[in-house]
């Protein structure tokens, strides 16, 4: 129930293309869904996040789509650039309730954007 499943494991996209990464969760108590970007040798950094009161959130080239009934959310990177090449992790947490607001991470997607 605490798992977050992420796919694909790796993704190769041409420059200018759209990158799509999907995540699914089981625990309906989750109420915060961030995406983190991680470059080699660095810590994860928050990219964009959504809460279940909205179905979509857009920040620049990055969009989260959220489907509460299906318990799925996805990250879309429009006009993908070589500088977007990184590992992307989805995550989920219970901001309210529970002992602590810990993040449960997906397994990660290694994105390579080819020039």
């Amino acid at each position: 129930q605490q798992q977050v499943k992420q796919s694909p494991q790796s993704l190769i996209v041409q420059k200018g293309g759209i990158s799509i990464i999907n995540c699914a969760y089981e625990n309906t108590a989750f109420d915060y869904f961030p995406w983190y970007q991680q470059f080699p040798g660095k810590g994860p950094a928050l990219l964009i996040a959504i809460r279940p009161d909205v179905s979509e959130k857009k920040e620049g080239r990055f969009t989260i789509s959220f489907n509460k009934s299906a318990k799925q959310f996805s990250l879309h990177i429009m006009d993908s650039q070589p500088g977007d090449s990184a590992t992307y992790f989805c995550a989920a947490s219970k901001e309210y309730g529970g002992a602590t607001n810990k993040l449960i991470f997906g397994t990660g997607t290694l994105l390579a954007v080819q020039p």
Partner: protein
Amino acid sequence: EPEVTQTPSHQVTQMGQEVILRCVPISNHLYFYWYRQILGQKVEFLVSFYNNEISEKSEIFDDQFSVERPDGSNFTLKIRSTKLEDSAMYFCASREGRIGELFFGEGSRLTVL
């Protein structure tokens, strides 16, 4: 821009040795976490810490692990007797309040031989 800083960046140790990983969270943050990432795998929650006590710990965080906030700035993770399987990248993270963005440090790579 304020950041979470971690030391050392890389530590190599022999199995059975004690290791202390150090973190300086962002100064006005009150919630502190340790996560670990085994090479090529997902980031896993270890422990959360608030108001000078552990709020929650995972099943990974057994009796060999401990955390401490010895002064107003440092947050440490101690592994009492390291095992081969403790080899991983350990990330410290902090947050200003219970909700909001969680900021991660760059990690401390631990290699146990």
